[in-house]
């Protein structure tokens, strides 16, 4: 009886980790998420993309996923396990999975790997990303208009290029409206911890900011903004339900079309590792409706969104680095490689970038 109970519990625990079954003739598409699919943020949106692919491609494919996979050695095991389980194409959705994916991709040359937000590629490993910074530029502009104090708070996860790029784009947007705009930055060293994120939001509000932006995945900071009667921006998915009076807009990710395209390519044998970076114009980054702001601010935000859709890059010169040196000359557009390795702040950010 004892043993039976223990076995039952162990089975229940392991069942919660893998969902999906196997069949021989179908293509099995698999995903590895860094957070829970119920985070209502980043991993949730990737999973929505998976569901869209499932719906669009019907019985040609079957899908499976692992959620809550920690970056590091755990990720190695997760990818290897999916590879052994017969997945034909595996999507890894967190920056920190990069080295694990490179390692496992080398071991399984017949399986196709796709890594979101990374930069290392191989014959069977492609990378894809979304230009979140485009949306963040517009958010910066809105923040500078809506903030009465001229200072915003920014909750960061880890100081990786992806996040630094977002901070810089936000600041450039804000400076385009108010050149003296200030930014307070707090790192919580986690992608997903509602409690810590809420603490960070409270800290920033207590220190006098009246608007916050976040590069972490839960809705907690926006809820704090709602409680305080102040403003903030959503992340990854539309969080308006959590902050009906606080959310100005949200930088949402739409991965479905990309996943469908790539799985189709894998099905008809045209798949090649690529290196794509999709933005607002591709429909991969979508700004949710502009709310809780005056009409003129809304008009400005819509105009910027349109400008970006037409091909304008927020990282267009003149842009100066934090130390005052010139980074982009007038009219010069930042190269993608530089953005993807961004490790400096732009001028006007009064903080030191952790290295």
């Amino acid at each position: 009886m004892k043993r039976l109970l223990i076995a039952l519990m162990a089975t229940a625990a392991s069942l919660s980790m893998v969902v999906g079954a196997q069949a021989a003739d179908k293509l099995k598409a698999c995903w590895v998420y860094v957070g829970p699919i119920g985070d209502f943020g980043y991993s949730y949106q990737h999973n929505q993309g998976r569901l869209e692919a499932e719906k669009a491609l019907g019985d040609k494919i079957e899908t499976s996923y692992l959620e809550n996979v920690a970056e590091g050695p755990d990720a190695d095991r997760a990818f290897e396990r999916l590879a052994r389980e017969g997945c034909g194409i595996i999507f890894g959705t967190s920056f920190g999975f990069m080295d694990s994916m490179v390692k496992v991709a080398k071991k399984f040359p017949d399986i196709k790997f796709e890594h979101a937000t990374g930069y290392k590629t191989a014959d069977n490993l492609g990378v894809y990303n979304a230009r979140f910074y485009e949306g963040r530029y517009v958010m910066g502009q809105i923040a500078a208009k809506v903030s009465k104090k001229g200072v915003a708070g920014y909750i960061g996860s880890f100081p990786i290029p992806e996040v630094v790029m977002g901070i810089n784009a936000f600041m450039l947007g804000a400076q385009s409206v108010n050149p003296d705009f200030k930014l307070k930055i707090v790192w919580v060293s986690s992608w997903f911890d509602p409690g810590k994120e809420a603490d960070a939001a409270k800290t920033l509000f207590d220190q006098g900011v009246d608007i916050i932006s976040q590069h972490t995945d839960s809705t907690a900071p926006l809820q704090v903004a709602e409680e305080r009667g102040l403003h903030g921006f959503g992340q990854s998915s539309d969080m308006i339900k959590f902050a009906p009076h606080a959310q100005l807009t949200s930088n949402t990710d739409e991965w479905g079309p990309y996943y469908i395209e790539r799985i189709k390519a894998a099905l008809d044998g045209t798949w090649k590792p690529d290196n794509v970076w999709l933005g607002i114009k591709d429909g991969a980054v979508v700004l949710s409706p502009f709310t809780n702001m005056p009409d003129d601010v809304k008009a400005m935000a819509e105009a910027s969104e349109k400008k970006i859709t037409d091909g304008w890059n927020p990282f267009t010169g003149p842009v100066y680095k934090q130390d005052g040196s010139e980074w982009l000359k007038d009219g010069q557009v930042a190269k993608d490689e530089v953005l993807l390795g961004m490790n400096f702040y732009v001028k006007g950010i009064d903080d030191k970038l952790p290295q």
Partner: protein
Amino acid sequence: MDITIAILLTIATAATPLLIAAIGELVVERSGVLNLGVEGMMIMGAVGGFGAGYLTGSAWLGLLAAIAIGALFSLLFAVMTLSLATNQVATGLSLTLLGLGFSGMMGTGFVGLPGQRLPDLYIPGLTTLPVVGEFLFGQDPIFYISIALTAGVAWFLFKTRAGLTLRSIGDSHGSAHALGINVIRYRYMAVIFGGACAGLAGGQLSLVYTPQWVENMSAGRGWIALALVVFASWRPWRVLVGAYIFGAVWIGQLHAQAFGIPVPPQILSSLPYLATIVVLVLISRNKRLTMMNTPASLGQPFVPDR
């Protein structure tokens, strides 16, 4: 609002779930049982509290549900380890795994729904007192429960006969059994109390701290609570001190960052954990004191011979 008070309020909210879960676990460990399932019971309390609050529209009913679900979940552990004498470490770990998975399954329907928040206390005249008013009389109800729990457990363990019995069971279940004390019954009650506390701590997360349900929202707080019990060398008031030190270091480093103090955030965010280790080292230097407080039969299964 004065910034010092604002910081204190944030610290209290961050420390409360740790304190409650750790106080519950302290009673469990004082009875000689090691339940590593705190994280699992906590997350079950969080989903249960959110769910009941959402469905009934009452945060108070949510709170009761959180306590009940935590207690019920710990009963599973009690049956396994006490009646069936399974290994406590393995059973506790599987309780955590089960809780994390099961809560995610139970909570799928609650994802993305705004929840109920327990209202803050408001006493006319007192809450509006300058400086101390808001901290002493204007916080959420669970904050007051956590302080009362600490005082209650300290009184129970060291000032009552039942508390003495519980501690003696934790030190030597064999002797207690020989004296005619019903070891298993005491331990059942202790484990269920621990579960109720962990559930309450989870309820605090989903009804006060961040009123929402998301998977994994406990984010390792159950483990910190477990460490706090050792940190406090099984003394209730030291658990309170430990929880607040932990909260203060965490919130303090956030403020340091927002002030723009140029210390790498990686170091700052590891500070609470470093502080815990340092204190543990300092405490364990005095072997005799540590031995005196550690329940001697902690973690050992007890099978009464009939």
